[in-house]
């Protein structure tokens, strides 16, 4: 299980990366992140939405109300060009950090 501090730092990267695959609403986003990280990253409602709103204010993502197939109205988030632009340096920074940690701790797959 990954510690809280690292999780907080990776949260934005996780959201931007998952939205790169296409628009989705908050609940689906949390479920997909949990599935794809095999439970290592879990977003509760309390953690997810303040972050989504903050990212929306930054202009990295944009939320719009859409009606799903079962007729329910949901707020779907999609990556904006600014968000896409933010994603690649963020990925690079995290990759560098992991490599550095790997060298430092001699832990394989850090």
């Amino acid at each position: 299980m990954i510690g809280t501090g690292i999780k907080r730092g990776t949260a934005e990267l996780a959201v931007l990366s998952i939205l790169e695959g296409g628009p989705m609403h908050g609940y689906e986003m949390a479920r997909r992140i949990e599935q794809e990280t095999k439970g290592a990253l879990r977003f509760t409602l309390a953690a997810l939405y303040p972050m989504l709103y903050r990212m929306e204010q930054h202009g990295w993502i944009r939320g719009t109300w859409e009606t799903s197939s079962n007729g329910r109205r949901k707020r779907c988030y999609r990556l904006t060009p600014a968000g896409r632009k933010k994603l690649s340096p963020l990925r690079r920074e995290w990759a560098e950090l992991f490599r550095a940690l790997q060298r430092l701790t001699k832990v394989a797959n850090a």
Partner: protein
Amino acid sequence: MPNWQELVRQLLSGLALDIAERDEIHAELAAHLEESYEAFCAEGLPQREAVERTLVQVADWQDLQRKILIARRRKQPMQKRVHQLWIPGVLTMMLSTIFLMALQKLGVQPRLVGNGSNGILFYAPWLASLPFFGALGAYLSVRSGGLLGTGLLASVFPAFALTAVFLLMFPIGTAIERVIGIPVDFGTVATALLLDGFDWILIPGVALLAGGFLVQFLFNRWSWSKTGRLAA
């Protein structure tokens, strides 16, 4: 099944954001809780446990409210104030003034109620028009996301602007007194201001405010029904 919409509305009742923005957040979070609850039910959890597991997602609603506010308040406050207060307020003032000037051009005279210098001028057709102008100001403010107070302030803006002009007479009088050397009788000025204030500020202000309140009332009813539809 709990009414998630109502639950979120109550738990995040102190979310000091624009009405539309607050309703959207309530609807979005309620939809998330509802989906979580349904997923737990689909896993075979009894209703009670599903509700508990769903609510565990938020340990502290006050803290969540604070975090949402911090995240959402990053919008440029000056830009918001211009759209929610200054533009609707100035427009209300301009339109009400233009209408008054038009009435005067058409020769519509005010009615003097009371006697002599203590009488109060009633510009009935103008006063009758003010609730509409007040309603327009409040509508424009609310449409831009203004809260109840901002909408009412926009509707009553002409009265405040006139009050400011009236109050400016005191420092202007003092300046005239010093520069020209002519003493100004502030007692007479104050009496005149009080009387004129009643005719031109208080009564028109109440008329403008009536329009503002009407719009707020209608908008609140519409907003409640809209949120209900979102949650349905």
